[in-house]
């Protein structure tokens, strides 16, 4: 999901590339100082930085409820969760930096609108139940996408993902537990939980990216063992895991065509509205503008702080010298 919107670039042959491919095929990890095709480097750089940006922008919709969390326990847990997401951003920027771009350059690309982040964060968090739904569904979908990345051919990315996945699965359980508490609560709480599922279900299915038939990704990323499963395969895994969880909560999945297919053992859904996906990706979501404005404002209002830190460090170095 955090990796949607990638365009693969085919590499250009050669003996070095053959050796590189042989190492990838043998499941060896590629490290920053190893030779790698330029297209591999650029693909990873884009994917990892996009993933990092998603973690950072993703702090905003959940941050929206930290000051209003309904109990001290939930407030502390949510603050810690959003802090984890910031930490994910930090490891991922560090992993991307090993490919030769600085965090400043990557952040500039985001703020100037040249880099993407996951479209899911352009949806608003209207009620407290959205915090439960995000943990359960958005972190849940993220895990489906990210577990295979723990075996990504690029060492620094794979190692960052191992650490991140551990925390994401904690977030997912915590989100589900929020939903469970709401669903066992008052009528108003149950209605809040159902409304959140109604709004987040389809966007979460879109997090896995366009259907395989239309996907421009694929070949090179798959050959390089960056991507190991298809969008549709991961989406189906998510659906199969999540539908029974929704039923356990006593909630209705907002899809009249949803049915269990005995023959394949899968839950089959109705058609996904890819028009909505394209619209939100292109800037037409409820919060696209607010998200970018919030990030730009934090960056601009923080400029004097960063300048002060640099100036002070430079003065300290002069004193030491």
């Amino acid at each position, binding site marked *: 999901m955090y990796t949607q919107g990638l365009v693969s670039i085919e590499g250009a042959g050669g003996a070095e590339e053959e050796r590189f491919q042989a190492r990838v095929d043998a499941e060896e990890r590629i490290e920053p100082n190893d030779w790698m095709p330029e297209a591999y480097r650029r693909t990873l750089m884009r994917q990892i930085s996009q993933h990092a940006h998603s973690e950072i922008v993703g702090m*905003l919709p959940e941050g929206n409820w930290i000051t209003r969390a309904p109990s001290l326990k939930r407030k*502390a847990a949510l603050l810690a969760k959003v802090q984890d997401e910031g930490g994910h951003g930090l490891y991922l920027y560090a992993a991307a930096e090993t490919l030769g771009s600085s965090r400043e350059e990557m952040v500039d690309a985001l703020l100037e609108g040249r880099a993407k982040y996951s479209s899911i964060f352009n949806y608003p968090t209207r009620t407290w139940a959205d915090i439960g739904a995000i943990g359960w569904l958005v972190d849940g979908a993220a895990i489906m996408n990210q577990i295979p990345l723990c075996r990504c051919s690029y060492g620094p990315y794979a190692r960052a993902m191992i650490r991140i996945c551990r925390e994401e699965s904690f977030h997912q359980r915590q989100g589900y537990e929020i939903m469970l508490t709401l669903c066992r609560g008052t009528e108003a709480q149950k209605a809040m939980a159902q409304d959140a599922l109604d709004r987040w279900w389809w966007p979460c299915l879109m997090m896995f990216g366009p259907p395989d038939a239309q996907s421009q990704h694929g070949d090179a990323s798959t050959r390089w063992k960056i991507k190991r499963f298809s969008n549709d395969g991961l989406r189906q895994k998510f659906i199969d895991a999540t539908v029974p969880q929704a039923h356990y909560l006593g909630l209705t999945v907002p899809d009249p065509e949803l049915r269990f297919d005995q023959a394949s053992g899968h839950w089959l859904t109705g058609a996904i509205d890819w028009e909505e996906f394209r619209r939100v990706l292109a800037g037409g979501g409820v919060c696209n503008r607010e998200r970018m404005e919030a990030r730009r404002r934090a960056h601009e209002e923080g*400029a004097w702080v960063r300048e002060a830190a640099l100036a002070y460090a430079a*003065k300290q170095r002069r004193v030491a010298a």
Partner: protein
Amino acid sequence: MSVAIAVAETPLVRFLLGRADDALILGHRLSEWTGHAPILEEELALANMGLDLIGQARALYAMAAEAEGAAHDEDDYAYLRDEGQFRNLLIVERPRGDFADTMLRQALYAIYAEMFWQATSRSTHRELAGFAAKAAKEMAYHVRHAGAWVMRLGGGTVESHARAQAALERLAPYLDEMFDGEDPSLAAIAPDVPALRKDWDSAARTLLGEAGLTLPDVPYPQRGGRVGRHGETLGHLLAMFQHLHRSHPGATW
């Protein structure tokens, strides 16, 4: 809407609620930075300090509940008291302001709180004494972290220096209140708070001096938080903080 609870405030309950409220309100102010900090590393540090303080508040509310003996819990105290029932210092309810306001307050308050909890670790209230030792360690980290920022801001650029000095001027009227004494009946439980002033003055003035900042003279110090006479900003904070909880009386979250 839930109506406010009535709290049977013995001196001990009032003392514990005051310290819990300090931690909760300051923790809330720090949490307002989430997603908006100037540097990613600071997102994490501000959240860390906020989590320490919210954790401290929860432990203190639990002790207040035990002292009150009225079956109130942490959320009753946090969500179901009205503004006039909050016992926090005025300094912690001041708006988060810019990064200088936040870090100057954090440093000056943390220097005080570390000393306060250090002294409280010798309390005859066993549970409180144990808690205080841990809280003092947490606040020592806040002193280091926020203190380092006071140095950077004071000694960084012309702008950061001016902002830090302006923040200090805004905070100064609220410092005296920190040293108001507790009820005399609590002599064995609470430390001699006014006696902390001397050490605080020397630590705070050392830090500010090294940062090139000057603590202004304050002709009219502000006080009243401990008896529920707050400024205009706490009401807004509580309106946001309490609204969801109060909109669903009796619900479990």
